[in-house]
């Protein structure tokens, strides 16, 4: 039985043929020709349905499907406008350059979900990638740098950004306006108004570098987000600022930032684990509310206190030394903190 599916952009053919050698098949020339004609017709139809469409100029990509750049593009204003959901754009190593206005790739202000944007560079626009009305996007292996506003801005939830570089943009490197996004292998450096800013809950930032931004390195505005195995350094504001409860910083370094290394200023139940916070102009780790938890953390040479936390809270193997202020401030709010293996003279 031959099954051909044209639902997907690529034609998928699976063959399930009897494998015993006893089947006796007789093809007449007419039947062979008919079969070949039918197959060619189907393949032709499928080719259109799941087209790999070459793109050699700025334009609206109006139909779902796969598009690829055949050359570098330059634009005044918007370049590629995604005009439907389920559009994939492979830049194939090419560069899209703007004149400081518009967006390199945009949804045009309409919801165009499930986009994939991969494998190229975008620079010189207002926003490199602007999916402010869309979500559920994947951006992979993309460099969106040197734009006047944001490198990448996405408005709706549930996006994956992997191996994305957003350096030297005028505003934020990556701005996500909704929840539930996975960011890994991000480079967000030298941006004008913060490295990564996420406005809602439940995000992960893994294996990333966020350095030398004006403003806050990583800011997440709601609960339940985790920064893991990342380096956040030399930003002019806080290194990591997590503005609600139940957030975690794991295996990360926050150093030489102009504000606090890790700032958890407002609510309870935040966690810092196996991390370093050194040489920040503010507090190394600042818990603004009780129930903070620390494990395996080194805090040193910050220009204010090492760790400020309200009690109740818990620490294990906290080493806080050589900070300009107090190495550990534990303010009893409504009960004691528990500390084991504390080294904070």
């Amino acid at each position: 039985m031959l099954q051909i599916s044209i639902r997907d952009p690529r034609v998928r053919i699976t063959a399930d043929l009897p494998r015993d050698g006893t089947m006796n098949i007789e093809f007449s020339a007419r039947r062979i020709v008919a079969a070949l004609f039918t197959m060619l017709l189907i393949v032709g139809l499928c080719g259109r349905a799941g087209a790999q469409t070459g793109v050699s100029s700025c334009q609206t990509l109006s139909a779902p499907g796969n598009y690829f750049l055949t050359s570098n593009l330059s634009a005044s204003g918007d370049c590629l406008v995604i005009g439907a959901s389920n559009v994939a754009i492979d830049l194939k190593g090419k560069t899209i350059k703007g004149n400081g206005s518009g967006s390199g790739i945009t949804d045009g202000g309409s919801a165009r979900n499930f986009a994939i944007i991969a494998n190229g560079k975008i620079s010189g626009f207002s926003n490199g990638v602007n999916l402010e009305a869309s979500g559920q996007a994947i951006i992979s292996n993309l460099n969106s740098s040197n734009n006047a506003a944001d490198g990448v801005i996405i408005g709706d939830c549930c996006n994956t950004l992997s191996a994305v570089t957003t350096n030297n943009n005028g505003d934020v490197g990556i701005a996500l306006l909704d929840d539930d996004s996975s960011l890994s292998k991000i480079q967000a450096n030298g941006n004008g108004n913060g490295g990564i800013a996420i406005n809602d809950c439940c995000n992960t930032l893994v294996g990333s570098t966020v350095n030398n931004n004006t403003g806050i390195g990583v800011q997440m505005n709601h609960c339940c987000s985790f920064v893991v195995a990342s380096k956040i350094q030399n930003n002019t504001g806080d290194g990591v600022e997590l503005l609600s409860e139940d957030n975690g910083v794991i295996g990360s370094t926050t150093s030489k930032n102009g504000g606090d290394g890790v700032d958890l200023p407002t609510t309870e139940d935040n966690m810092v684990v196996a991390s370093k916070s050194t040489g920040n102009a503010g507090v190394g780790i600042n818990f603004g509310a009780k129930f903070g938890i620390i494990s395996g953390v080194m805090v040193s040479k910050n220009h204010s206190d090492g760790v400020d936390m309200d009690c109740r809270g818990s620490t294990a193997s906290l080493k806080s030394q050589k900070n300009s202020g107090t190495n550990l401030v534990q303010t009893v709010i409504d009960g004691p903190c528990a500390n084991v293996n504390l080294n904070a003279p």
Partner: protein
Amino acid sequence: MSLERGFRGYALATLGALALFFAASPARADTAVSACGTLSPAGNYFLTTNLTATGNCIVIGSEGVSFDMRNHTITGNGTGDGISDGGGHFESMAIANGKIRNFSVGIGLDTSCCVVIRNVDSSKNTDTGVLVGTCCGVLDSVTANNNGTVGVMALECCYSLNNLQVNNNGAGGGIIATGCCTASANSTVSHNGGTGVFGNDCCNFVINSKVQQNTGDGVDLITSCCNFVVGSTVALNQGDGVHLTNDDNLVSGTNASGNSGNGIFLSGTDNQITSSVANGNQGAGADVQCPGAITGLQAKGNAGGSLTTSGGTCTQLNNKL
């Protein structure tokens, strides 16, 4: 305002100060522990010798207790808890540096929150290695191997589980997180009966971990949306490698190969796979309910086909199927 203090006034003040000092001192002093018992009041306690017990051994009797086992071992007779909160709801606690063996539950903090457990090996207990019961908590550099039922059980939301070794536990599985928003990072979860990492609410994350050769699914995050598996190896499990349900699940940079079920199974809608590998699984490489998006998926040699999609349309780019 004029204050006049006579001798009596000074004496009372001095007595008051002394009383406060002695009342406060026990809470702050490091207290040696050489026998099973209750640790109260708040303060730092440290173990001076190995302990053996019939039933519970150490009972945390107050919030603000830290307990340093100083590399000693607490051994039970297969019943009770090695370290327990005794049913108290304590909201700060720190436990570190030792081994716990052969209790029913190695560490059982069923009703306490805001706990940190670091550098502890709670293995070979008859039921559970570590049980933490109330939001939030941190387990860091914790080993829970060869326990009779479950390695690590987190009963409510919001734990950071970092650098765990959770292997060879019983039919209950490796890590069980029944609430939302738990991150399991940099951990190894292998050869457990049942599921390697199980989550039962939204927003549970498995990051940079190895979850292999468990008898159930490798990673099974169900009931609610928005679970992520990032940078992990989820291989050779007897169920699905990655099994995520209920919408908005994201798999990125993950190798889900050689599993007896599907490599990656994503139900619900709005799922994504990015830069992942799913080879040599007995089911499908990836079985994804759409709409969603899939890019950079390599899926080869899977008995159930490389990629199966259902529902709406998944955008696909640069997959090697």
